[in-house]
């Protein structure tokens, strides 16, 4: 492996314009697989959700899942696509053990949905992303690679394959080339993936969990010299498993491509793998003759020809369009434009919706998700919805604050506990002994000590300078290690001194 020269993104963008293409795979949440009646539950024991069809046993015949077609059409409509009057499945031929048929049933030149677009917002600007197509296909099995060094089979590397995932319906959404100002490219890519996540999530057709692989993004990127109209060679980065990673993958590939081009080299057309831990990509597989997939129409499956009446019925089931929904929520919540932009940018819209539905005020929900939770997500490098805390739990914790049982400071410790798996907020409070002390006896004694320790402050308060009370409250809180009801402490200080 050669050492890579990386050019800082800012410098790279002075000389080159990035051109992107994004592919998103959505795993549908149908009860059964695309072409057979096997269940699709996540995390089942290996090879317990398989049958002759998804194992490709001789003579097995696939039959299309009607619900998957319905979901595909609804996704197409939500992406403002046209829906094909007639389309077919095709065999994509390749040999790899994760696909027991030696082909993947997919669609080739006749996707079920095509020519769509979505508008995404970044820093107050709207960017239109054109959708080339959304087509149906099936997921592959999962391989577990085991090295020869484990000694299980002497000197040989091998893989263990679980076909539970093989045949789960996937929708692949492919954009046309995206050309936006270079300094916006990474943010636009992230915003697009986040937008599609919210859009598809709103349809209820997928769990759209990047951390569980039900939404997977591939980032295709090339650079062209400024002023040039000739596209450069692209790389395809896979394994990009969070919104933040989408952004980082774009930036890394801009740096890497610029390094190669600056030295007069040429970019290899290849698959690259993104590494979450380092934010870098590494070479996967060079594109070659082996990528001659010899597509041909799938003879075992009848063509799909959705009636226009059905398409219109499905169009009527679409939820309110995201832009309309956002305006409505902004008005309901009384958020400023900036609040709204931050909310969307952080991918917190649906989390705040759910938190508000669970009984929290919009302002409090925003405070937690954009403050404390965003900070935690930033530290761990995860997305907000993968932190391990749910909107309902946030609402419970806020309710505990409102009732005076805990304060904001203790709430942070409750969040720690919930995220660490110590149970419900209530259980964490009990387990960590986090309740605030509002017992006047204990507080009164602490207040007396604080007054004694700082007679100057006490004298000023007696003289009417109430602003100094903060110093005494701070002293009491410190003594009580944060577990005091600050409001009650203030009252006690004023009672004693005025």
């Amino acid at each position, binding site marked *: 492996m050669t050492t890579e020269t990386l050019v800082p993104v800012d410098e790279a963008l002075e000389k080159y314009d990035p051109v992107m293409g994004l592919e998103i795979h959505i795993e549908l949440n*149908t009860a059964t697989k695309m072409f057979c009646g096997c269940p699709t539950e996540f995390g089942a024991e290996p090879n317990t959700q398989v049958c*002759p069809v998804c194992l490709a046993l001789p003579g097995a015949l696939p039959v299309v*899942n009607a*619900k998957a077609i319905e979901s595909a059409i609804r996704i197409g409509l939500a992406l403002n696509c046209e829906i094909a009057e007639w389309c077919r499945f095709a065999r994509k031929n390749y040999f790899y*053990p994760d696909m027991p048929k030696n082909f993947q049933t997919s669609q080739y030149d006749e996707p079920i949905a095509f020519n769509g677009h979505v508008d995404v917002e970044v820093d107050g600007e709207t960017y239109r992303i054109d959708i080339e197509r959304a087509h149906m296909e099936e997921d592959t099995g999962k391989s577990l690679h085991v090295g020869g060094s484990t000694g299980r089979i002497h000197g040989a590397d091998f893989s263990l394959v679980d076909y539970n995932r093989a045949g789960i319906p996937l929708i692949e959404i492919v954009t046309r080339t995206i050309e936006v100002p270079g300094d916006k490219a990474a943010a636009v890519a992230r915003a697009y993936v986040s937008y599609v996540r919210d859009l598809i999530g709103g349809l209820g057709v997928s769990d759209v969990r990047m951390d569980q692989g039900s939404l997977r993004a591939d980032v295709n990127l090339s650079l062209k010299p400024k002023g040039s109209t000739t596209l450069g060679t692209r790389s395809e980065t896979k394994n990009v498993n969070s919104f933040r990673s989408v952004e980082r993958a774009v930036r890394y590939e801009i740096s890497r491509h610029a390094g190669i081009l600056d030295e007069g080299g040429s970019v290899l057309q290849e698959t690259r793998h993104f590494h979450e831990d380092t934010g870098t990509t590494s070479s996967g597989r060079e594109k070659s003759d082996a990528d001659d997939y010899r597509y041909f129409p799938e003879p075992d499956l*009848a063509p799909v020809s*959705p009636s226009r009446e059905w398409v219109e019925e499905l169009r009527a089931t679409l939820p309110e369009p995201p832009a309309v929904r956002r305006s409505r929520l902004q008005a309901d919540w009384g958020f400023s434009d900036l609040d709204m932009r931050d909310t969307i940018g952080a991918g917190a819209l649906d989390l705040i919706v759910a938190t508000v539905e669970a009984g929290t005020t919009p302002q409090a929900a925003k405070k937690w998700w954009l403050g404390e939770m965003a900070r935690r997500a930033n530290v761990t490098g995860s997305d907000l919805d993968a932190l391990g805390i749910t909107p309902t739990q946030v609402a419970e914790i806020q309710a505990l604050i409102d009732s005076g049982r805990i304060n904001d400071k203790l709430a942070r410790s409750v969040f720690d506990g919930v995220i660490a798996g110590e149970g419900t907020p209530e259980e964490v409070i009990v387990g960590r002994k986090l309740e605030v002390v509002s017992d006047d006896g204990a507080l009164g004694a602490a207040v007396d000590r604080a007054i004694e320790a700082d007679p100057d402050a006490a004298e000023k308060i007696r003289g009417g300078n109430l602003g100094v009370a903060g110093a005494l409250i701070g002293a009491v809180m410190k003594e009580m290690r944060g577990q005091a009801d600050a409001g009650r402490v203030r009252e006690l200080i004023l009672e004693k001194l005025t």
Partner: protein
Amino acid sequence: MSEPAKGISRADVSHLAGLARIDLSEAELDHFAAELPAILEHVAVVQQAAGDDVEAMSHPVPVNNVFREDVVVPCLTPEEALAGAPASDQQRFLVPKILGED
């Protein structure tokens, strides 16, 4: 989906064999390079029978929209699923590692 091939070269046969992961000897390459064009000639006769007004079809009868309901049916047990596997371990199919992939 592809243009009918007029002739097939030895290099074509070698490429196709590679795609199909079939290891052909030099003698076999010569053999198929001579034999495959003969098969294609026969197919070409059939193609002549269909004029430009006849559309290519992938299915013998015009049947569309053959669907099933999204209802779970019993699947195989892992033991049944793995019964025909040449090798298995940890309730999974054991296969040789494909080089060049992670």
